[in-house]
């Protein structure tokens, strides 16, 4: 039977198509599981030491990763590290500092949506697949020619 599409028929077809969409999306969600992630807030600087004694130099594997990127700083210090879980289909909010927060939403099949908040305002939002071995780095300039970096990766 050939389907005849008219403007009157559209709402009906949309409903069918929407159902297909939801089914497909539901299928994708069904394949997801909880995501175990780790996020680090890092300070990039050309100083040899951080003025805050609680900051420690980043681990060698993180340093190597940052050195592969077109970043100019000589030293990187871990300000905070948080391991967290994002339930399948859900969202987890992670406060990295007073001013920096990430909302990470699971979209299914390793795909996440990351919303970065700075001083309570949405600064950036993006989606990316983050399987094990994949790293997402957000960064920006900080006072006195330094930088802030947020490094996000899967840990399971």
């Amino acid at each position: 039977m050939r389907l005849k599409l008219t403007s009157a028929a559209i709402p009906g077809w949309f409903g069918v198509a929407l159902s297909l969409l939801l089914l497909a999306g539901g299928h994708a969600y069904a394949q997801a599981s909880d995501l175990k992630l780790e996020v680090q807030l890092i300070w990039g600087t050309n100083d040899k030491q951080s003025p805050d004694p609680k900051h420690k130099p980043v681990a060698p594997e993180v340093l190597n990763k940052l050195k592969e990127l077109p970043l100019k700083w000589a030293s990187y210090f871990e300000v905070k590290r948080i391991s967290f879980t994002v339930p399948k289909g859900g969202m987890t909010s992670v406060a990295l500092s007073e001013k920096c927060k990430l909302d990470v939403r699971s979209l299914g099949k390793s795909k996440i949506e990351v919303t970065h908040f700075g001083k309570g305002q949405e600064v950036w939002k993006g989606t990316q697949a983050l399987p094990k071995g994949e790293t997402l780095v957000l960064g920006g300039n900080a006072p006195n020619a330094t930088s802030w970096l947020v490094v996000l990766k899967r840990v399971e």
Partner: protein
Amino acid sequence: MMDYDRQLKLQAYLDGELSEAEAREMGNWLARDREAVALHTELRNTRQALTGFEVGIELPESREFFWSKIEREIERQAPPEPARHSWLAGWRRLLVPAGAIAALALAALVVTKSGSEGTPLEASLADPGAFTYRDDSARTTLVWLSYPAENELADSEPSSKVP
């Protein structure tokens, strides 16, 4: 003859690398030691000879040619455009009655496939000043944001270094 360490200290004095006390001591010594004066003069002459050495050295390629190579390389190394735009544009184009189902079916397909590994970053709230760098071999995506804004950086307290 001056010992080597003294000679290096004389050089440091010329270069303004000594502390005030050491510079004063060196100045006093220079006032009474002819060998030191001679060496100091030689070092100073050499420094003066080098002044402005690079002025007038010109890149031996035309402006246009040199720029064209840079532009080409920048484009070659630029990260790929996010797939979202072409997907969205395609979705909108198909928003006509005959194509509505095909578009939504396509959307369904994308949803099921988009969990696959290595898909590019898609920014839905984009920072117009941001840029994205992707290193496939390192499996790392860097998004460099313009946050905080320049004026916020200037106004920040020196102690509040990390946002």
